[in-house]
């Protein structure tokens, strides 16, 4: 135990940074797991791991992509460790999870369900890019793909969502 002098706080800038980014980490974990309870567990583990490894983060500006990659790895680890059953997307949508419901914006609800139903290989890089702000190079490194492969997956993800949004799909060079 190493108590600090009276009047000091225990958290510090790093703890505040984690608190600030936590909401988006929960959202990201949810889009990966498609289950609220699992998302909360993943973020809990992520925050502990990040706290223990905080010395590794040299630049606070890089905290967001750094934490997102920890969330992704903790999510994978949780499934390896607990062998959780895969979420049935149709069931998840049918349950009308309140997390997916907007305030009267039916278009947004449809888009959320469409994102939920994207294959993982498209959904994951899309969420990493749009919500996490990761570059295609960072996504490629994390997923073990080439940048070109990541661009193609992102294009295909958006192509599927264009239809939900009432737009004609782009031509795929597949």
């Amino acid at each position, binding site marked *: 135990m190493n108590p600090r002098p009276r009047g000091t706080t225990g958290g510090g800038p790093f703890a505040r940074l984690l608190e600030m980014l936590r*909401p988006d980490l929960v959202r990201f974990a949810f889009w990966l797991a498609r289950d*609220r309870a699992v998302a909360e567990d993943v973020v*809990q583990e992520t925050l502990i791991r990040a706290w223990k490894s905080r010395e590794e983060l040299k630049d606070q500006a890089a905290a967001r992509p750094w934490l997102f990659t920890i969330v992704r790895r903790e999510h994978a680890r949780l499934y390896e460790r607990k062998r959780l059953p895969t979420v049935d997307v149709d069931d998840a949508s049918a349950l009308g999870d309140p997390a997916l419901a907007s*305030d009267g914006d039916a278009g947004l609800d449809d888009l959320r369900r469409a994102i939920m139903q994207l294959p993982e290989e498209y959904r994951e890089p899309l969420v990493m890019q749009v919500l996490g702000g990761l570059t295609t190079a960072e996504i490629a490194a994390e997923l073990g793909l080439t940048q070109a492969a990541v661009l193609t997956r992102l294009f295909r993800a958006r192509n599927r969502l264009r239809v939900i949004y009432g737009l004609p799909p782009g031509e795929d060079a597949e």
Partner: protein
Amino acid sequence: MSNECTHFRIAIGGEPRMLSPEVSAHLATCAACRQFHAETVSLDGRVRAALELPLAKFRKAPPPARRFALAASVVLAMILAGGFWLLRPQSALAGEVLDHVRHEAGSWAAHDVLSAGEIAAVLQKAGVQFDSSMPVVYASACPFRGHSVPHLVVQTASGPMTVMLLAHESVTSRREFSSDGYRGVLLPAGQGSVAVLMQHTEVPDAAAMQVLSGVRW
């Protein structure tokens, strides 16, 4: 649409907000691809809004189907286990933590930071290690469910926080609880668990995490 346009649209669809000079040059000369780009940027705004889930709704009670499943599993477990041991899961543990904290209400008023020696003596009695930079203002080795348990109060930016290091109580997942102005959370910590509580405010995740990261059984 030319093959060239197809190539550029994949680049636009892959990264609509970060165009290469090559794509930008193409957009300057191709109205159809310019429209495709504008549509994609607009779509991306909606995608971002869709991904930003309302967390307030996120934290509400589980949906009815899950509640039903939980209730069904509880009933089944009662039948299987004869009912008695059911009274000891996490909610019962949370209740006992609350009772204990209520009985040591004076602990919240402590404000003098304890010495490392004073804290070490309490931890040693319980056979627990706790390495944290959080200032500890109260430490007692309390009897709890047949074991000696470190009951600490630490100062945080949000006020005093009670910490109970429960080496002998295993919980399967995070569980929040509240009663009479106390708000707390039970957290799994290896083979044991940790209970953290605050008065009139939610336990900040960062503070709970800081506690968890310092516990060794």
